[in-house]
């Protein structure tokens, strides 16, 4: 016989068993311990609505045993209680309850301040509900998108009738809600469900089995969670037919194992053939409850059917007696199972998540206690646009004395009373203070009790409503929540495989995946400084700007003098926003036909495109902009031998006359047409070769092969970080802050102030009239500095290091850092911990720029 392991013990499985059925048949009565008081909790709703039976299944915590099918070989553990759920030493908390009133941890661990971190750890260890498996493989649920005319949520009689009817009008998807049908034990209901299922399918409705809605959103849209997928549905109409569950009874002892809601008891008896007790008391205020007692009798149990209000249940390990106020008076019964069928509580959380008129209810969710015929009629009416309006009226007795209102969070009537007396006098703040409704069942059992309590206490109408319903209705796993989300959508250059094959460590650099190093950063730096190297700079933003107004656009937007750039020349370019703050930088090259080639930082390309298009529209200019970032690859050939290397691969003129610094020319390298731009970011003779992306690998290979006489090596981002620092070049974002204007960065030279207008000009003029309160400076250190370390003067922090490195070329440790003015002057000597930092002019290397102009 197939079996599972429950806390290491073998438990036989019968055909069709849930984990709960198998465990209960094997004698398990305590499934969990309550959150705070560690009271025993047993099977209660039996329909996946409450959290009394959360267990860990095959290492995954938080599974509801009552709706989880049992499988051979399954490993099941009860999650709560120390050392075990059966014998829990922390059950002492139940006796100490009066010393731990509601909200006690808000008050008692506040002083001394060190106490709370300690108390928090203890409380967390004592209250957890399962442990996340740290070594579990990452699981991401695939997400499917569906657009449909009508979405029906709920696979009962009303839902199926709605789907069958709506399918005649257009596409329909029905989520069967995964939970067992409300009337699954009623033969007439089963027949109706079979008939309506066939009708709905025949009409073309798509039925998603084992799918449950976890939320309804604006649109309307809904998220449905299935066994292997998350379905995001956009629908014109949503019909919620999630039915009703039996009302949660609140009375002293209501949480004892052996107290059942009626349909849970019915399922256990009729579907799984499990006898829930030998002496069963059924307290039924519904017709269904009366029928249930007949079914229980058929199992051989002694059943007492009573009508009235439960006053109290008693017992230790499980219920042993119950006292009921019947029409005939107060009566006590000995029992080992108490079944409650007190009335109906609509499963209306989804319906309350939205006020959109396209979302309506049908069946028990709006008319709890409907007959089968009424439920079917309600579903068909909803599909025809004539939905019933939901009722807020409760048909069952609200809590009066004591007992647990919120079984998830261990909130009793006594707790609610106490909180009320403390001044928390509305349902919303009662919820926040007591945490009632905030447990795993999300208020399925208790939210109406909370609202009714506020009403009974005389709260104003606005303060006694149901608390806000929010997704998720059912607890999804983290893997479900991240369905379809990828934290890194990485862009790859055409040379990605070449880098990986060369052993590069690939780093995420903004949206790109780029080589950090090929193994030896120091050697990569030396190769650039002494011989020749290549770097993949395909990630740069690249734009072609053309049209009769191209120059006007660039002149009005950027602070450089565009007219002064002759064809074949290029200039460093700053992009300022309207506030005069630096938002990006790059290079602007004038092409011969009146158009321009513009590069931006790798991370700024998307924003640059949007920004330029915005200005084209705002200035109403005739400009055509093509983003060539994806189309063009780019390789920077850098080093004193760069020109010699290229000369072996091209017949074109590489002299300074042909390609001035900074300037550009169209040349052919190794048969690949390139726009060669003479640049100087690393401070050596350098040519950026912009070329068709499809030719990148061939060009890269040719450069490496031709560079062998110089022992060429590629360099990555780590080397670049040092090389640019030696030249004092700023990395935007790393060295800058969002409110930096050019003067703070020492980049005032890149602004043509004499220009009549450019974006940010007025702001710069205003800021120029004010003294600089901080600026970015070059720093030399007498020891090894750390990036991010505060810079201090006489112990007072006045700045921080933004970049630093130990540089051979610069003769020691150098860096960049922010420094604030002290008494109106910028200090030139600072400390960074034990290291002394001296403000130093930049560049640290080749200050005259002779090497890059070679």
């Amino acid at each position, binding site marked *: 016989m197939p079996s599972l392991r429950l806390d290491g013990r073998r438990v036989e499985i019968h055909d069709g068993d849930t984990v709960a059925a198998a465990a209960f048949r094997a004698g398990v009565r305590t499934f969990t311990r309550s959150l705070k008081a560690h009271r025993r909790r047993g099977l209660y709703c039996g329909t996946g609505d409450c959290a009394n039976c959360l267990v860990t299944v095959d290492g995954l915590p938080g599974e509801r045993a009552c709706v989880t099918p049992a499988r051979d070989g399954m490993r099941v553990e009860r999650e709560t209680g120390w050392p075990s759920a059966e014998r829990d030493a922390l059950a002492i908390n139940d006796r100490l309850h009066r010393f731990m009133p509601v909200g006690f941890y808000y008050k008692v661990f506040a002083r001394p301040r060190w106490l709370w971190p300690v108390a928090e750890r203890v409380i967390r260890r004592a209250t957890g509900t399962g442990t996340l498996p740290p070594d579990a493989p990452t699981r991401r649920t695939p997400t499917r*998108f569906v657009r449909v005319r009508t979405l029906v949520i709920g696979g009962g009689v009303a839902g199926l009738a709605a789907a069958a009817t709506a399918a005649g009008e257009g596409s329909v998807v029905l989520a069967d809600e995964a939970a067992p049908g409300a009337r699954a034990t009623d033969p007439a209901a089963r027949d109706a469900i079979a008939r309506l299922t066939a009708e709905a399918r025949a009409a073309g409705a798509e039925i998603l089995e084992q799918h449950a809605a976890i939320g309804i959103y604006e649109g309307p849209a809904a998220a449905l969670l299935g066994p292997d997928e998350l379905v995001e549905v956009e629908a014109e109409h949503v019909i919620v037919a999630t039915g009703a569950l039996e009302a949660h009874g609140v009375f002293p002892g209501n949480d004892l194992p052996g107290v059942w809601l009626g349909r849970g008891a019915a399922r256990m008896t009729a579907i799984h053939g499990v006898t829930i007790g030998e002496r069963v008391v059924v307290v039924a205020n519904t017709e269904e409850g009366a029928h249930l007692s007949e079914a229980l009798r058929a199992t051989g149990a002694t059943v007492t059917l009573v009508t009235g209000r439960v006053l109290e249940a008693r017992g230790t390990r499980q219920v042993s007696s119950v006292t009921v106020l019947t029409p005939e008076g107060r009566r006590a019964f000995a029992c080992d199972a108490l079944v409650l069928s007190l009335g109906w509580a609509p499963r209306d959380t989804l319906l309350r998540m939205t006020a959109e008129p396209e979302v309506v209810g049908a069946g028990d969710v709006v008319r709890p206690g409907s007959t089968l015929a009424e439920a079917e009629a309600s579903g068909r009416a909803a599909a025809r646009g004539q939905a019933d309006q939901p009722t807020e009226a409760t048909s069952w007795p609200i809590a009066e004395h004591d007992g647990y209102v919120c079984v998830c969070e261990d909130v009793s009537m006594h707790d609610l009373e106490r909180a009320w007396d403390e001044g928390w006098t509305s349902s919303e703040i009662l919820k926040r203070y007591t945490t009632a409704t905030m447990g795993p069942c999300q208020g399925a059992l208790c939210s109406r009790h909370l609202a009714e309590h506020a009403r009974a206490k005389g709260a104003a109408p606005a303060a006694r409503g149901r608390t806000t319903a929010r997704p998720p209705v059912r607890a999804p796993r983290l893997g479900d929540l991240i369905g379809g*989300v990828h934290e890194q959508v990485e862009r790859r*250059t055409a040379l990605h495989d070449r880098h990986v094959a060369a052993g590069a460590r690939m780093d995420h650099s903004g949206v790109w995946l780029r080589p950090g190093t090929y193994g030896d950063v120091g050697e990569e730096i030396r190769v650039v400084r002494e011989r020749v190297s290549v770097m993949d700079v395909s990630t740069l933003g690249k734009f072609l700007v*053309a049209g009769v107004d191209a120059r006007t656009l660039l002149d009005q937007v950027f602070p450089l003098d565009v007219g002064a750039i002759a064809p074949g020349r290029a200039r460093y370019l700053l992009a300022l926003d309207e506030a005069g703050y630096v938002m990006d930088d790059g290079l602007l090259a004038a092409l011969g036909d009146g158009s321009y080639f513009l590069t931006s930082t790798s991370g700024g390309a998307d924003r640059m495109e949007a920004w330029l298009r915005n200005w084209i529209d705002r200035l109403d200019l*005739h400009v055509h902009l093509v983003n060539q970032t994806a189309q*063009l690859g780019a390789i920077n050939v850098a080093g004193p031998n760069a020109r010699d290397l290229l000369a072996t691969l091209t017949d074109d003129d590489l002299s300074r006359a042909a390609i001035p610094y900074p300037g550009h020319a169209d040349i052919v390298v190794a048969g690949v047409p390139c726009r060669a731009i003479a640049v100087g970011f690393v401070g050596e003779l350098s040519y950026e070769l912009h070329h068709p992306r499809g030719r990148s690998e061939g060009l890269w290979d040719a450069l490496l092969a031709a560079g062998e006489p110089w022992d060429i090596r590629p360099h990555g981002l780590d080397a670049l970080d040092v090389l640019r620092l030696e030249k004092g070049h700023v990395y935007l974002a790393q060295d800058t802050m969002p409110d930096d204007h050019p003067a703070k960065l020492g980049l005032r030279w890149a602004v043509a102030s004499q220009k009549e207008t450019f974006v940010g000009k007025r702001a710069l003029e205003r800021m120029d009239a004010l003294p600089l309160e901080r600026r970015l400076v070059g720093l030399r250190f007498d020891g090894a500095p750390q990036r991010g370390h505060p810079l201090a003067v006489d112990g007072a922090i006045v700045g921080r290091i933004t970049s630093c490195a130990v540089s051979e070329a610069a003769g020691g440790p150098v860096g960049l850092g922010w420094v604030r003015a002290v008494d109106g002057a910028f200090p030139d000597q600072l400390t960074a911990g034990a290291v002394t930092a001296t403000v130093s002019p930049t560049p640290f290397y080749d200050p005259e720029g002779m090497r890059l102009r070679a």
Partner: protein
Amino acid sequence: MPEVHDRPLGVIVCAADPAALDRLVPPGHGARVLRVAPDEVLAVVAPDFADDVRRELADRVAALDHDALVLDVSDGWAAIALVGDDAERALSYLSALEAPAADGFAQGDVARVAAKILREPDGLVLLVPAYWRDHVRTRAIEDAGAVEARA
């Protein structure tokens, strides 16, 4: 299960005045013209005809907008084909966009990156910037259940 193929395609961009593009006569050679923005069209064509289509487009648009830009940007795009009857269902795991009609196209997020979707006789083609090729292929296989094309 649809198969994932890399489909060679030529892509020509034409950036011009909206009014010029409104009056532009589409090129031949089986090119599909996608109006991706008021001032931009992409012509998608078999690679062998890319140069012909570029010239044709340049000639035609020059008469309507003398400084319009026409460029062969085939290198900048990756065309990933989902081939098979289940292509539309596979797409539903990648995008909230609906598959286009035979003569239309859709554009928006596919696997959370900007894409165009074309319908082909054997399935769907996802046109994405080339730097996202690997990402979209991986998502098509891992999330949408597509399989690598048989060699």
